[in-house]
């Protein structure tokens, strides 16, 4: 896949930076909010801290419980040793099982304590984890909804979904599987190390020699797997991208005989994915047997040295047994650690990404003391509004515009003239760099979002349909609307006819993304939605560009109903849509070139609109 672009010599000379820019490394560079600096890491820690903050007391209690649990677990081998060394001799010598019975009774008690503490710990720590996760999910969702459109334009919906699902699940994995095993592993390591030394100083110290070896192994594994881990994810992403692109574009693939080249590319990425997976596997193949090797060597050493001490009479068989049991315990958690590194790694990078998202402040903020609007007439004013997406390249160099309440204004101009920018400023998807946009004389920045959205609504060409019925989708304009109101809105825009012909009428499921409805029908539903919301100001962005003529005709009629009695701003490529306006603004490079009623503008012989209109008329030929 990466070789596909490097056909020309010029392309081969490109630096890494330009390769990134072209999207070759889109997947790795796509995580643009994360710079992996210490600040991000601190943010991630703070996020984790704030998620766990409500449970500090419970966590403290759990810390005590987990220590008790591990103490109980670790005391079992010692008690076994006691059983062997002090329980057996009385039986052999005077058939007295009393000591043994006492030890067995103690063991039963210890196991009971262990069971109780373990079940409590697992339940409570699991509950805290899930609660924190719920909190995180809510926060992330809320925050994405709060972030402004500029952010979403750059961030893309795909990444929103991946942050809210994959990344949260990575953290879930750690909370569910990693946390308990890490804690247990650490406590076991420390506990057994201490016990080994206490049981027998010499033998214990010999065992501890293996400790630095294990630490070194774990260190090596951690570093090596961190590198490959990233590569695995990247190459998996490449396979997925190539696959999804082929399947979603299968029509073009087949029509243009792209299959052989696709197969080549896919085999390349699939093999790369295999190779890197194999590399990961081999790291484990080295690490795990190495730990096992160290463990087996230590067992032999203990066996031989311990055996020698026993036959010399310096040590009991019970101690030897306990030693062997503890060694098992000592090495077992090491196996879990491989698993833990991976979950920990994905969880911490997920946490960093989420922390970065949550740290992003919306560019459009609510005022601290919002103005109460009362009844809104719908007069809109642009007062010397300047706006630029990139500094130094103004899209609007200073716009003055007054739209009286109830007027329908159409914006006309070539791509880049600033039509959509004006619409978005009016809906306060953006704030002006300088100057002000006012609704009935109130600066939009002084109005809070709920009020603003109540009075200013923007309908785009996307006509997004939510999952649910047709009625649900119309109701989106006014959640508390009654069925009668919904029907009235549909009738008003002329959508009632096609809705009536659907299998279940208003209760018909629109299917995924409105797949059951045609583009024109979706447009009508969107209009009904807007009509139901009944805003004072309505903005229509290219609402009719992709419709066929009968649908357009239908929509056009609906438009007149929707626009009546309210201030409206229309952007359209099709001049037919413009015709319903009271006033037309011809824009170029963010400036108003012509301003007047459609009839007046057509009348002016050398006007731009007149020329556009002529071109359009010719196109209808």
């Amino acid at each position: 896949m990466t070789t596909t672009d490097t056909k020309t010599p010029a392309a081969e000379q490109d630096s890494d930076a330009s390769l990134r820019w072209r999207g070759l490394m889109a997947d790795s560079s796509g995580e643009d909010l994360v710079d992996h600096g210490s600040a991000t890491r601190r943010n991630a820690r703070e996020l984790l801290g704030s998620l766990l903050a409500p449970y500090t007391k419970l966590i403290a209690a759990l810390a005590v419980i987990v220590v008790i649990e591990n103490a109980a677990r670790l005391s079992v081998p010692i008690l076994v040793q006691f059983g062997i060394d002090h329980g057996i001799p009385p039986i052999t010598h005077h058939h007295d099982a009393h000591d043994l019975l006492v030890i067995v009774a103690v063991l039963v008690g210890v196991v009971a304590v262990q069971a109780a503490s373990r079940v409590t710990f697992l339940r409570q720590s699991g509950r805290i984890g899930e609660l924190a996760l719920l909190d995180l999910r809510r926060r992330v969702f809320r925050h994405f909804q709060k972030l402004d459109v500029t952010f979403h334009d750059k961030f893309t919906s795909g990444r929103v979904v991946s942050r809210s699902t994959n990344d949260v699940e990575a953290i879930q994995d750690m909370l569910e599987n990693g946390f308990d095993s890490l804690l247990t592993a650490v406590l076991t390591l420390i506990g057994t190390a201490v016990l080994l030394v206490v049981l027998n100083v010499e033998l214990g110290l010999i065992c501890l020699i293996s400790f630095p070896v294990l630490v070194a192994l774990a260190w090596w594994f951690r570093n090596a797997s961190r590198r490959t881990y990233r590569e695995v994810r990247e190459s998996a992403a490449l396979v997925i991208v190539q696959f999804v692109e082929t399947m979603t574009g299968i029509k073009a693939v087949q029509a243009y005989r792209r299959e052989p080249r696709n197969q080549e590319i896919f085999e390349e990425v699939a093999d790369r994915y295999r190779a890197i997976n194999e590399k990961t596997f081999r790291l484990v193949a080295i690490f795990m047997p190495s730990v096992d090797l160290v463990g087996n060597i230590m067992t032999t050493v203990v066996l031989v040295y311990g055996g020698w001490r026993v036959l010399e009479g310096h040590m009991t068989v019970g101690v030897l047994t306990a030693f062997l049991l503890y060694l098992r315990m000592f090495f077992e958690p090491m196996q879990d650690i491989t698993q833990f590194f991976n979950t920990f790694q994905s969880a911490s990078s997920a946490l960093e990404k989420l922390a970065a998202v949550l740290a992003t402040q919306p560019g459009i903020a609510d005022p601290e003391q919002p103005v109460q609007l009362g009844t809104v007439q719908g007069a809109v004013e642009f007062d010397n509004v300047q706006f630029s997406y990139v500094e130094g390249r103004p899209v609007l160099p200073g716009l003055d515009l007054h739209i009286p309440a109830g007027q329908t204004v159409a914006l006309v101009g070539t791509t880049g003239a600033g039509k959509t920018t004006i619409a978005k400023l009016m809906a306060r998807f953006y704030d002006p760099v300088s100057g002000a946009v006012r609704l009935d004389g109130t600066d939009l920045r002084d109005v809070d979002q709920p009020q603003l959205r109540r009075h200013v609504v923007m309908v785009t060409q996307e006509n997004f349909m939510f999952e649910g019925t047709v009625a649900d989708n119309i109701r989106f304009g006014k959640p508390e609307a009654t069925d009668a109101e919904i029907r009235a809105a549909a009738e008003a825009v002329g959508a009632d006819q096609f809705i009536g012909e659907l299998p279940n009428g208003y209760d018909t499921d629109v299917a995924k993304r409105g797949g059951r409805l045609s583009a024109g029908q979706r447009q009508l539903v969107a209009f009904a939605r807007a009509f139901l919301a009944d805003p004072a100001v309505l903005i229509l962005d290219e609402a009719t560009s992709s419709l066929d003529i009968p649908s357009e005709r239908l929509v056009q009629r609906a438009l007149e109903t929707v626009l009546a009695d309210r201030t409206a701003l229309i952007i359209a490529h099709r001049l037919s849509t413009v015709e319903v306006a009271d006033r037309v603004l011809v824009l170029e490079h963010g400036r108003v070139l012509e301003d007047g009623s459609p009839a007046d503008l057509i009348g002016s012989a050398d006007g731009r609109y007149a020329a556009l209109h002529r071109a359009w008329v010719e196109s209808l030929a």
Partner: protein
Amino acid sequence: MTRQPIPVSRPTDAPRPAVPAGLVSAPALRPPRDRPRRMTNLLRLLPYLKPYRVRWTAMLVAAFASLGATIAIPLMTKAVIDGPVRHHDEHGLWLLGTAALGVGMSEAILWFIRRWLVSRATMGVERDIREDLYARLQVLPMSFHNQWQSGQLLSRIMNDLSTVRRFLSFGIVFLALNIVQIVVVSGILLRLYWPLGVVVLISIVPIAATVLHNQRQYTKFSRMAQDQAGVVATGVEESALGLRVIKSFGREDYVYDRFDTQVTELFDIQLRKVRLQARFWTLLEVIPNLTLIVVLGLGAAATGDGRITLGTLVAFITMMLSLVWPIASLGFLLSLTQECMTAADRVTEIFDAPQPIADGPVNAVSPAGRLRLRDVGFRFPSDDERDSGWALRHVDLELAPGETVALVGATGSGKSVLTSLIPRLYDVSEGSIEIDGTDIRELTLPALRSTVATAFEDPTLFSLSVRENLTLGRPDATEAQITEAIDVAQAQFVHELPFGLDTRIGEQGMSLSGGQRQRLSLARAVLATPKVLVLDDTLSALDVHTEALVEHALRNVLQDVTGIVVAHRASTVLLADRVALIEKGTITHVGTHAQLLATVPSYRYLLAADDELDDGAEPDPEWSDDDRRTGLREQHDVDECTDDTCRECATLRSRPTPYGATEGAGR
């Protein structure tokens, strides 16, 4: 496009051709059994293991050898304690110690060998199946792809294959190994001292029961959690895609409440899972510990009485504990086996999907481009009863070489389907389509598809450079040809992209606007220099000005090729020599634009745009003729109209002289 003969089908045993045929897919798959069983589909995947059989077998041998070492170590402990330690035999101690060291080291080494070998073998299998699956999916027809969402296919090619790989790499190995270990160790324990052995065997029962019960419950909860996570993900996706609508209407709270309900439900399920797991892991530690207590009590008593040796007791305890993990993991391994069988079903399901559109025997590229549709009928091969009606029926149409026909029809009338039939993205259900007298089903797919080029309504661009996107249909195009195609499609904007034609675009690259994408898609079709050019409403997202320029340039292109143009607007229709009107899946009228406009009311309804939307600035002259268009405002007479800006008149004035206007196969 290299026009070499391409084999109709590849024999299974033949080596892969140096130039991948692409249109052929031959997975190394066993044919399905007549009477399928649960394991059948998994077994059918076995041939994929063949290239790796030596490694895989060696891996199995290493695994069993290392099991032997694992079992031997506690026995050596017993030998040490009962032998040298008891009899003060220092020499024996060293001897046994060395042996134990050898066994311990060889266990680790065998373990290493197993892991090292298994990685190559099973990852290779996974990749091979993945590549074959992808090859097959590329060949499967549109009718298949319409029924499958790409997400479902993705989960097969990623998740299901990795399940198969995990099963092959350790699932099946450990299943065998653990069972052997349990049996052998139990046998040894019974032989060491049978009463204690029986105690251990009895303790296996509750552990196994707990494990199996837990696995069932856990699978149930996991599935519930997965489903609910899916619901949550859908909600998130919707809220991200519909963000602008949500913001426009200020419905953040409404959407959040819905999300909150879903996510709380997920929380509840997760909590149930946590409780189940807490109980399970506790039992898994407690039951062996209780057994340990019993073994210790009885064993110590037995040792005291001299019935067993101290070494036996120690070996007993260590061996017993070594059984816990093999038993505990049985539940997981069994469910992995289940999952793998399901995954194999899902994978083979795709391999078994019928592949009705295959190469014909003729590989010649037609020279002229005479296109003929004979009584063509089409219905979607769908199990959905509602859609099983005819999408097209009795379509007859003949296009002379070089002629262009516009298809006009309401949404859903079958225009787009008709265009998909010509490159055989679908096959006709009845009738036939011929190019220069040859049924297109007789042609090889590469031959056909290099003759026909289509620019689709929804322009698909791939994450490649602009150049590669353009030259899809003609990889050997020269720079000049590319520039020409770009000019025709008015796609000069590509020269201004940061890297010009080498800029990467599409999903993973630069994003382009809808109009830009359409123009590239058009340039791509034009560049392919087909004999038959199909334009499926390719200009819908262009602004008026650009559209006019594109149409002007297209006129030249269409002179030399046979063209089918799906049109929604009069301006596009004028690219064509004739117009075919499609209504409810059949061609009802064929003629020139002027003829149809004059005589067919339904055609006027579709194409006479906007006449009711006159802005009222000009007076509407009287209309003399009788007109059946109810609900539409009257047309007016060109000759009587004096207003230069009058749209209707302009429409009629610029009407082209009808050339080649033969009343065709109109029904």
